[in-house]
């Protein structure tokens, strides 16, 4: 049974509560990125690039049995960790759930505040892109 977006978000918030030091949080984000399954090279093209990110993010989505699955990669370790978090929360959910989710975990783990504005814009771009995929499949 697929966990709900809210449940996964709560898990992530709890995991991040273990760290006092921001550097440790980054280390954890980077580790999450390292565990992200590799994206097929055929999707690492400009067509799959998320626009508005300072670093490169490739995002591919497909539908299976009413659920939407995401695969992604990035050329920088921190961004890869961030997209991996988003994939963990949103991949396998229904299009409706993806579109309506406010993704409040991002502010709860204090991610946005510690990313420079351009990166933060990049984070928004990733979310917009994932929701756009969901709209296209719904």
């Amino acid at each position, binding site marked *: 049974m697929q966990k709900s977006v809210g449940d996964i978000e709560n898990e992530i918030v709890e995991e991040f509560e273990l760290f006092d030091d*921001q*550097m440790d949080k*980054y*280390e954890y984000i*980077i580790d999450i990125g390292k565990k992200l399954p590799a994206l097929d090279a055929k999707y690492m093209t400009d067509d799959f690039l998320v626009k508005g990110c*300072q*670093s490169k993010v490739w995002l591919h989505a497909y539908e299976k049995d009413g659920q939407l699955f995401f695969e992604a990669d990035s*050329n*920088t*370790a*921190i*961004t890869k960790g961030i997209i991996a978090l988003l994939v963990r929360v949103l991949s396998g959910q229904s299009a409706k759930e993806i579109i309506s989710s406010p993704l409040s975990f991002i502010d709860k783990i204090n991610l946005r505040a*510690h*990313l*420079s504005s351009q*990166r933060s814009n990049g984070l928004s771009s990733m979310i917009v892109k994932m929701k756009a995929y969901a709209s296209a499949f719904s």
Partner: protein
Amino acid sequence: MNDSIRSQFPILHQHVNGKPLIYFDNAATSQKPLAVINAIEDYYKQYNSNIHRGAHHLAQMATEKYEDARKTVAQHINASEREINFVRGTTEAVNLVATSYGRKFIKAGDEIIVSEMEHHSNIVPWQMLCEEKGATLRVIPITDSGEIIFEEYLKLLSEKTKIVSIAYISNALGSIHPVKEIIRAAHEVGAVVFIDGAQALPHKKVDVKDLDCDFLGFSGHKVFAGTGIGILYGKEELLEKMNPYMGGGEMIKSVSFAGTTYNDLPYKFEAGTPHIEGGISLGAALNYINEIGLENISAYEDELLAYGTEKFLEVEGLRIVGTAKNKASVISFLVNDIHPYDLGVLLNEQGIAIRTGHHCCQPLMDRLKMEGTCRASFAFYNTKEEIDATANALKRAVKILS
């Protein structure tokens, strides 16, 4: 150097992400001493007024201070006041010359020479001019260590060469180019030379007569003054021959619908109400660095560069990009295959400001076959302790990212 100097820069005394700020992004912009901050404050508190018109006291005072600043700039680079044009920055200086000189004197078939390691602002205006006029942009190649290949430059020079435009010091790598020799060779074929002095003015004495450059541009904000102000120096006889850049108030002698006559130098290129407090802040900044002495500044920064190079190389896997023999206090580097952005974020998390990316030098990055670098650039208010702290922070970041 140092505690007394650091006390003059209020911005340095703060914490970022819980750590003391270490500001190593001086090649992007410099911090401002109290002398500059106070000059701007005094202007608005005591004598804000439009200049060069109005007989009242404030207008006279503002005019005097603004023109004093021009005098300070002229003395600083050994030029006459008529040759000092206030502009917005180096970018505007290049564009002004490309437009006012280039449009008048460049013809189809002419050639303009730049180097492979120029900032975009010293490439794009010339490309635009070449496109408009059917001229050709030629490029001086560089070595892997980041030095221009002088023999190749000499081969590019011919009677077709009309303009050579080159940075005194590379913003991305810190290489100091042999501009005096470059200028001399260009003059032998009758070309004029624009020197992008943006990175040079903060670090060393620049004497336009000694260099014999035809034009020199630099930005106030990189030399401890406010933003939005810069200088275009041009030899008087060249400025006289050029058309105005922008039309408007201040740059005219008389206006009628039958025809308008232009003002004398330097006002011919200064249409509109200028950036008055910016100009005044530039005068204050140059006075401030002259009090410390540019020789002292250069010597201390050389020390920081040598120390920083040694300390950074202690970080496992770190390689320095740009190892010219003659270098300013800029260290561009990469560590293993770690992306510069990742290092930038993790240094910022430890209170350290460096620049990451292509440094507005995409052709240079293409030449070096890299997307970008991390760049630490030192000013005279930086310390060896800050370099130690940065080397340690780098080691921690690299460990996390490996």
